[in-house]
């Protein structure tokens, strides 16, 4: 079956430092990857959409300078949170899919980021 592995599951970093999270798609080709942040109130914020061989599109309030993303092939994507501060806390989820608008997103378990 199709799965997305996301790691680490949890991470704690000091304020001002950076952390990287990774997603691995298994059993399908992740032509498109969406990175979300789920707030403590459980709402989803879309950070960026990435399609292999296309430019990564960032949503308003999120920038490449703060959340650089790499999507080098059809099975892997990573995102770094640079200079993390308290407002960056939350559960970061990657969702990947193969195909167009009607195809489901497969989500990883998420990376829970805590900032001290």
């Amino acid at each position: 079956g199709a799965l997305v592995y996301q790691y680490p599951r949890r991470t704690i970093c000091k304020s001002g430092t950076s952390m990287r999270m990774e997603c691995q798609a298994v059993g399908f080709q992740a032509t498109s990857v969406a990175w979300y942040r789920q707030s403590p109130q459980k709402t989803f914020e879309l950070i960026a959409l990435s399609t292999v061989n296309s430019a990564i599109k960032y949503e308003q309030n999120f920038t490449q300078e703060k959340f650089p993303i790499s999507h080098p092939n059809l099975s892997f994507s990573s995102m770094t949170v640079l200079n993390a501060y308290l407002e960056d806390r939350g559960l970061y989820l990657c969702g990947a899919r193969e195909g167009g608008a009607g195809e489901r997103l497969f989500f990883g378990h998420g990376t829970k980021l805590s900032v001290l």
Partner: protein
Amino acid sequence: GDSVTQTEGLVTLTKGLPVMLNCTYQTTYSPFLFWYVQHLNEAPKLLLKSSTDNKRTEHQGFYATLHKSSSSFHLQKSSVQLSDSALYFCALSPSSGSWQLIFGSGTQLTVMP
């Protein structure tokens, strides 16, 4: 712009009772609608999806019908179980060139014994 509205933030029910979680959407395109379920400390998983008007879709006892006339895709189950306690998200994928998935705010369903 495109949006999804879930009116209930929290629903608490006794086991065996029916449930309906509301979802309405707004888009100028012909939409794909999804319901995702997220159990505690788990990833969101697809429960249902539909793009066909007035056709009921079912999975694991849950069902929903996309009604384009009222822009709705309410999730229902005739008899909830304890294991149904989870966070439920309605999501919209406009069939435009952008494939992004737009989530509603979610509804926490808690089923009591």
